[in-house]
């Protein structure tokens, strides 16, 4: 496997980056608003086509019945592959619904940074190396700063950009610090090495597991800001309120997906050392996040601020899936001696991924609808402005109601299937056959009850939006000229949600397979690790320290 193949693997990202560059440069020089949106879509489509080529690479891979293969820092596995498709989907929805700050349409830089974002997300999905992970995260963060700065020229927009910028730097600092510890333990930036070290026989008896836990914890903290978990959620309400609906849509989807995928990669690699900390941390965070998100959302009058809190709440539900995944011992962990039924071991992760997909689509749809109902220069702010929309724009109102009911988790919509998968997996940890110590710990039953009650609380504020639209008489028609793009995006998202509601089979299967490959740490890198050459002057450049040798 030569570096050529790793470049070839990154082809879709390259196409996106190249299109972004063309848009940036073209935009800089041409005065009028060029066909940047169409170009953006074209770039995404091309990248999709190339990604489809990878399908063949999989066939070859699957003949040797390997789940995944790594080529240097880049890996080729189902989680990465499906996550890339998700990234492209999200990208299309975002590019469609982004509107400029005035009638002339979106600035080229906004489209360009969106493309870069998507490229960063795809990179994060396929990265297998700490460096590349860091690069991918930054490739997502930096265009986000540009996007937020350009989204709304008002003081509020700038304040939002400012807040996101500083808190994002803080979080990437934390992530990096976590990476440094992981690197310290693994001895190499490859995740596979981290896993082989962590899973090593003697490893458990040294002080290194503490370091691994510290590293993972810092990574969780860093990524927490992206997924909007409680202690790091503070930016979300203010930034969502400040920016335009399209930017808020991007914030609610892309960083969340990236954060979850990177977290899965790192956690899979560092899993043997995590022990109880892993799922207890996740459970604790999920309970606090859910409750705070739902409870504060009840107070909000601004629509986007309300949706921010709802995104925090949904992050809480996600964590339950991850907690279940970390709680149920992986079958490959030697010595756990617990027969684990095939489906359930990895099912927590699949439930979380499926929930993530359903949430992203519904959230993007919601923001597209709100974008459509407002004017480019003055987006729709308070819930009461939604009054009477059902009579003036029945289609959009119906779509918005659909998204609200799906987010609230009401059957028969997709949100319900997401919550069902989460809850049934969570309960199966305590009640099902794989119950580790049945009857002793009822953590997951308690959390399920809290999650279910939170769903009921969330229904309250989703109902407020639906109530405003359908029950209140209309005063002052909302100037719904968000443009064709937002309407298309809403329609597309609605179709996706209805599709997943009526026949959730394929989506569920996809998330299952992705979870299958994501849970297993990637195989060791094919290429030999870069080794510093022995210093010419005959002295071993560095006496290999006694500690790490012992641990090898």
């Amino acid at each position, binding site marked *: 496997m030569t570096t050529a193949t790793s470049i070839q693997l990154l082809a879709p990202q390259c196409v996106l980056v190249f299109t972004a560059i063309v848009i940036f440069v073209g935009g800089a020089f041409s005065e009028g608003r060029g066909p940047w949106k169409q170009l953006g879509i074209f770039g995404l489509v091309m990248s999709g086509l190339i990604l489809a080529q990878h399908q063949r690479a999989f066939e070859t891979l699957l003949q040797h019945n390997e789940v995944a293969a790594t080529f240097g820092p880049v890996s080729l596995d189902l989680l990465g592959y499906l996550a890339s498709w998700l990234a492209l989907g999200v990208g299309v929805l975002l590019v469609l619904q982004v509107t400029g700050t005035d009638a002339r349409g979106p600035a080229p830089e906004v489209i360009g940074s969106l493309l870069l974002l998507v490229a960063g997300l795809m990179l994060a999905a396929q990265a297998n190396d700490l460096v590349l992970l860091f690069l991918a995260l930054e490739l997502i963060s930096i265009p986000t700063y540009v996007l937020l700065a350009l989204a709304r020229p008002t003081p509020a927009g700038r304040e939002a950009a400012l807040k996101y910028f500083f808190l994002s730097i803080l979080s990437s600092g934390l992530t990096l610090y976590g990476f440094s510890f992981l690197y310290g333990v693994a001895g190499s930036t490859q995740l596979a090495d981290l896993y082989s070290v962590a899973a090593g026989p003697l490893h458990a008896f040294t002080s290194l597991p503490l370091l691994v836990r510290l590293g993972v914890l810092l990574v969780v903290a860093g990524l927490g800001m992206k997924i909007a978990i409680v202690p790091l959620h*503070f930016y979300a309400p203010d930034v969502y309120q400040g920016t335009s609906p399209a930017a808020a849509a991007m914030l609610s989807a892309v960083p969340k997906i990236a954060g979850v995928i990177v977290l899965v990669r790192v956690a899979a690699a560092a899993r043997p050392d995590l*022990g109880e900390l892993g799922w207890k941390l996740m459970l604790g965070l999920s309970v606090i996040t859910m409750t705070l998100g739902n409870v504060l959302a009840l107070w909000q009058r601004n629509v986007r601020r309300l949706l921010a809190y709802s995104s925090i709440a949904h992050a809480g539900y996600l964590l339950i899936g991850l907690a279940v995944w970390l709680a149920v011992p992986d079958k490959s962990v030697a010595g756990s001696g617990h027969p684990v039924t095939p489906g359930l071991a990895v099912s927590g992760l699949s439930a979380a991924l499926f929930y993530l997909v359903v949430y992203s689509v519904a959230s993007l749809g919601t923001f597209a609808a709100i974008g459509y109902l407002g004017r480019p220069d003055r987006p729709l702010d308070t819930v009461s402005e939604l009054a009477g929309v059902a009579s003036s724009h029945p289609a959009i109102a119906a779509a918005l109601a659909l998204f609200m009911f799906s987010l609230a988790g009401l059957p028969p919509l997709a949100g319900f299937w997401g919550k069902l998968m989460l809850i049934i997996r969570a309960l199966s940890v305590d009640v099902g056959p794989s119950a580790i110590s049945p009857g002793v710990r009822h953590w997951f039953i308690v959390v399920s009850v809290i999650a279910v009650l939170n769903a009921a609380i969330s229904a309250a504020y989703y109902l407020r939006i639906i109530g405003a639209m359908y029950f209140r008489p209309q005063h002052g028609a909302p100037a719904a000229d968000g443009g064709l793009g937002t309407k298309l995006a809403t329609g597309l998202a609605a179709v996706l949600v209805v599709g997943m509601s009526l026949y959730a089979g394929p989506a569920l299967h996809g998330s299952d397979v992705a979870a299958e490959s994501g849970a297993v740490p990637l195989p060791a890198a094919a290429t030999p690790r870069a080794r510093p050459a022995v210093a010419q002057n005959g002295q071993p450049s560095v006496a290999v320290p006694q500690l790490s040798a012992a641990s090898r």
Partner: protein
Amino acid sequence: MSDPLANIRTLLVLVPALPLLAAVVTAVLGPRVLKSRAHWPVVLGLGLSAIVALMLLAEVNRHSRNMAHDSKLAATGHVTLWRWTGIPDVLATPPAAAAAMEKAHTTPPRMLPFDVDVTLRVDPLTALMLSMVTFVSFLVAIYAVGYMHGDRSYWRFFAYVGLFVFSMTMLVLVSNFLLLYVFWEAVGMCSYLLIGFWYQKPEAAAAGKKAFLVNRVGDFGFALGIFLIWITYGTLNFHDTTLSSGGVLPGVLGQIRLGDASLYVPGGLATAICLLLLVGACGKSAQFPLHVWLPDAMEGPTPVSALIHAATMVTAGVYMIVRCTPLFGASPQAQQVVAIIGGLTALLAAIIAVTQTDLKRILAYSTISQLGYMFLGLGTGSMLGISAGMFHLLTHAFFKALLFLGAGSVMHALGGVIDLRQFSGLRRKMPVTCWTFLIGCLALAGVLPFAGFWSKDRILAAVHERAHAVVAGYHSSFPVYEWLYWVAIGTAFLTAFYTFRAFFLAFCGPERVPAAAHPHESPNTMTLPLAILAAFAAGIGLTLEAGSWFDSFLAESPSLAALAAHETGPAGSHLHVAVLSTVVVLIGIGLAAFFYLGERTQIDRLAMWLRPVYEASHRKLWFDEVYDLLIVGPLRILAYLLSLVDRFLIDGLVNLIGRLPVWLGAVLRPTQNGLLQSYALAMAIGVLVLLGTLVLF
């Protein structure tokens, strides 16, 4: 004749079918087609039904002797129309049922089914009641043609009457406690509709509601009784039925159980059952605790009062107790209570009737009093007493209907005025009504040749005999029946007094008429029934008493057969009772004449002298006020309080829980204060806390 009872079965079904058919035809064709001729279907239907009933009476008379002894023959007398419910193995076989089954050589199964078939049976008791009900209804229907002439919803009245007669006939015919309860309430519903016939009159609507609710209270007791019977005897059917798993399930009043008195559960359970049945009977026959609805029921049109609240419905209670004689036989205490209730009601009603000024109210209280007499008769528990009660029921039906119809024709003549203070001396203007009314009064008071004397005398005799005979094994310390005998005599005096007071006030004295009215004799459609009823009121007592056919015929009905066989002793001479009662009645009439003929001054002085008693009696012993004070009032207040509890306490609690998340939100809101650096600080602290967890796990 291959099947001796074949035509009994056809007649039996025909009796209720005709009024039902008439009612349906009137209801469907009434408003548009028949309009003023809407009475024809019902009158015809009732007439035919009366004839069929009489034919049925004749048939039963012919076969009753051998039906009583040959159970298989009696069984063929049943007609099963359809199966109401049939739920298999519902109740574990109770001991009483098991014992009866052994007697009938069938092995008792572990679980009994709950089978209820709509079965009609006929025996002398039923035949008697049928003929009385249908005949009186027929006469009242004819009378109503005149009385209700020109009413806006003429057809509706006749439809209701048809429905009522159907329900009453079915009540008497059915052979199952549950169906008895069904038609018990159906009759109550018809009385509700008929009392509230002029629904625009608020008093009528309220009276209808009151009647139904008081009946419902009675039915509450009746239902409890039925459940208890079902639990103890395993079945609700009167007659014996065959189980699906083979073998015979002996009915509560079936041949098997009647044959051997020991099969009836004695003791506390029997008393409980009988007392509950008594509550039902009191509700329906307006006895002491539940009698308040009958006087108000006079708001309905007078034919209704005559038909329902004199002759037929109110006697349902008496019929039920007679039907359940074996049950009552098992608990002497219950029979004693029946007697006491009867005696007490008779006395109280008579006292109230004395001072009433409204003619219909007087007749209503008189009905309650006479029903009290019947209950008293049944309470003696002897065959003599029971047949006396039934005999009184029969005669009472005729003369009370006569009196009510008489009052009706007075109202008809005077344009709806019935208050005795506003008119008098109608004898010249309404001779027929006057004389028929007089005959009715004589019968009611119990003067010698008239019907009332014979039946009331029988009851007094039965009570007298019961007072002196010591029933084996049961001797109550307090001479109850002694006291009841003297109460009965006192009531007879009062009855005579208020009857003739009403007659003298209405028909004698100077002719005085309310302003707008111009009195005239009622049309012959009204006077004809009066005349017929008068003839019956005069003659029936004598005819039945002479041939003593009545006792023997009644004794052949299964429920009473055992009792009759048991008491074969010669009927003691009751001459002294007859003499005493006649003397008392004559004194009553004399006093009434003294006070109310000629100028009526002495009565005012007497009223002044007995002021408290007069006030009590005039105010109907304050029953309504007491009930409002003790029951209706508190319940309304409780209802209001509960509605407040519901709106504030429970709803408040629910809203409180609803607001919990919002309060939690309010607590957490200040964390989001907008300053970038406080966020950074909070994140830093959050991360430190997370690191803290490292130490724990």
